[in-house]
């Protein structure tokens, strides 16, 4: 076991759409340690910010982890532009957070949008642990779908939903959950990963049904080691740090409104950074065209 393996090379890049992309990163030690439910923090360059990303897959033999990123702000758009196969991240640290508990017998793994990626290793791990796995994944439309084949390979049942009905059930992932619970009375856990509003809807749906529902939270954080407290979330009326107490929590106890408000904390700064970056991109492409 060598400690000098840290070059953070991108060995594969795949684009799922014009905003969603996959990065497979060589981090042999980290790939050995990674468990479903955990996350990493990456920096793309020395002046960059630390951004938390849930581990979407890991390959211990190849020594790689897979991250799926949505280009929404300055950092993730810049990464989309710059990180091609053979390039390097500046830093990757992890795995962080408590691993998932894989002790359910019949489980619904729900992924919405970008949450589809991190719920995949859980579906696979539950399958390997002998559980009956129902996959429910949702996208806005057919063009955004990814990893359908990977899910089908590890799920006993698979339901795909789309907002516009262009693929699978028309509607949100909650429709898929409703369908699953109508057909199975013995579901003992729902895992829901996606935007906070989606996880909140899932938790609201399963609360009266008394099905344990685990959600994975991705609040704003810096270090990911319990040191800044920026990631504090309200769970069951007490304050928890998502990075070390989570990132997975009982969805029926999470204060999603608090989480969503806190995620808007830097909206102004995020806008400034993005606009400044887009101006500099426009300026440099104009120069290149001359």
């Amino acid at each position: 076991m060598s400690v000098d393996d840290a070059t953070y090379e991108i060995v594969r890049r795949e684009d799922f759409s014009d905003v969603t992309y996959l990065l497979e990163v060589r981090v042999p030690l980290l790939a050995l340690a990674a468990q479903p439910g955990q996350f990493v923090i990456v920096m793309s360059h020395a002046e960059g910010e630390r951004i938390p990303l849930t581990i979407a897959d890991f390959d211990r033999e190849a020594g790689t982890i897979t991250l799926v990123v949505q280009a929404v702000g300055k950092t993730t758009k810049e990464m989309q532009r710059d990180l091609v196969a053979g390039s390097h991240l500046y830093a990757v640290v992890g795995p962080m957070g408590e691993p998932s508990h894989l002790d359910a017998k019949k489980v619904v793994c729900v992924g919405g949008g970008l949450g589809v990626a991190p719920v995949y290793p859980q579906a696979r791990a539950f399958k390997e642990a002998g559980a009956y796995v129902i996959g429910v994944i949702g996208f806005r439309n057919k063009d955004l779908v990814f990893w359908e084949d990977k899910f089908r390979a590890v799920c006993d049942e698979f339901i795909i939903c789309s907002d516009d009905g262009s693929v699978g059930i028309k509607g949100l992932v909650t429709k898929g959950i409703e369908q699953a619970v109508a057909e199975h009375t013995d579901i003992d856990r729902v895992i829901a990963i996606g935007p906070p509003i989606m996880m909140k809807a899932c938790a609201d749906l399963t609360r009266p049904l008394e099905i344990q529902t685990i959600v994975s939270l991705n609040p704003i954080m810096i270090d990911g080691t319990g040191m800044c407290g920026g990631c504090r979330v309200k769970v069951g009326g007490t304050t928890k740090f998502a990075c070390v107490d989570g990132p997975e929590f009982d969805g029926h106890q999470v204060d999603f409104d608090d989480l969503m408000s806190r995620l808007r904390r830097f909206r102004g700064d995020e806008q400034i950074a993005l606009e400044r970056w887009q101006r500099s991109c426009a300026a440099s492409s104009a120069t290149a065209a001359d």
Partner: protein
Amino acid sequence: MQERAPEERIRGFMEVACGYTPDEAIRESERCLFCPDQPCVRGCPVGIDIPGFIQLIGEKDFRGAFDVLSDTTLLPAVCGRVCPQETQCEEVCTIGDTLEPVAIGRLERWVGDMAIAEGWATSQDIEPNGLKVAIVGSGPAGTACAADMAKAGCAVTVFEAFQQPGGVLRYGIPDFRLPNEVVDAEIAKLARLGITFRCNALVGRLFTIEQLFGEMGFDAVFIGTGAGTPTFTDIPGESLNGVVSANELLTRSNLMRARDFPGHDTPLGIGKRVAVIGAGNTAMDAMRSCLRLGAETVMCVYRRSRVEAPARAEELHHAEQEGIDFRWLTEPVAILDDGKGGVRALKVRRMELGEPDASGRRRPVPVPGSETEIECDTVVFAIGTNANAILGQTSRIELDPRGYIKADADLATSIDGVFAGGDIVTGAATVIEAMGAGRKAAASMKRYLGLTAGDAPYDSEPLDATLFGFASHQRGFARVVAA
């Protein structure tokens, strides 16, 4: 020693204290009485030969002064800046009975800075002994232990979770007190001793303490992870945007360079009117950083009075000079929201001092009916830190009831071959105390590994009865470095 004027220095992060000129340093060194009982040496947590290095400054043998310092401290440029000298060496200085004590800290800093400028290093022939030592955490405790073990001939790897080494010296202490270039220079000195720094390594999660011994082949481990988990108070409104820990604020500003946003990508997130809760060194750092980061008003809200404030005298003095609005005997009761998820005001009440409490300080008691509101948009909690949970979560190491690592008088932990020291054992303390703990653990680790060469003062102490004890029979105590 010259200081930058308050109105000049709050416009940036340049260091407040300019440092001595050579003439100033020599003149100050001549104030030392070289008294025979050397109270200053006893007042120093690591026992630096203070009269020894001061005498050499007076003789203009600056390199010699550096070598004397280097016998006991690794980071003179750091400790000269951040040690609380007024409660250590300078407090007991004989001349201080009647006049100002000798400015030991400033002299130490001056020698340390000269060593950096001149590229001096304590070069010595290190004979490799084939033993591997892992250090968890690259702050003052970890680097002190690392240096002693490297000098003893061990192959030392320091693991750091952040992207750059230095621990609290890097992320916590702002540049106006300790410039990052000084940290870089001191770390480079350690790298020249052959120490490997492995950043982005979160020990406990990337691999466990137990794996360090087995698969990774280390012979001994030192844990110096510090007490980094910030405390909040559970008053209403803590989750509002605009409420942050001092750790978060300082990490954004110092390590992530949020003060250069958007030139650096990390945003800072402070407003125009900042209330900092607490009056320790971290609170002073947070307040003085906010002033430099564009806040118009920065208030210190503390429930006791100025006398009880735990900050170093110099930091408090600098903060007052720079125009911090101190609200002594004021306790926060609630943080009020602005209706948009942010902060509108801090609700506080007046306190008065009652009978002394367990800490010996007079207990603050609320004055009935004294509640008022302080208008602000940012609230910073600087009321202390707790043990980090990760190593406890991921290993079988024994913790005390508060979550700190249990260590005996020799800083041995419940796991054979694992030592711990600094804030993760004692709770939050000072840089020099953490360095002292790192050196003490190194002395114990050498005994554990059967190394007897080249030791600092701590080795003179006999091995006491210990909580966890050494398993010396398992480790070939006779393993001595061949001369």
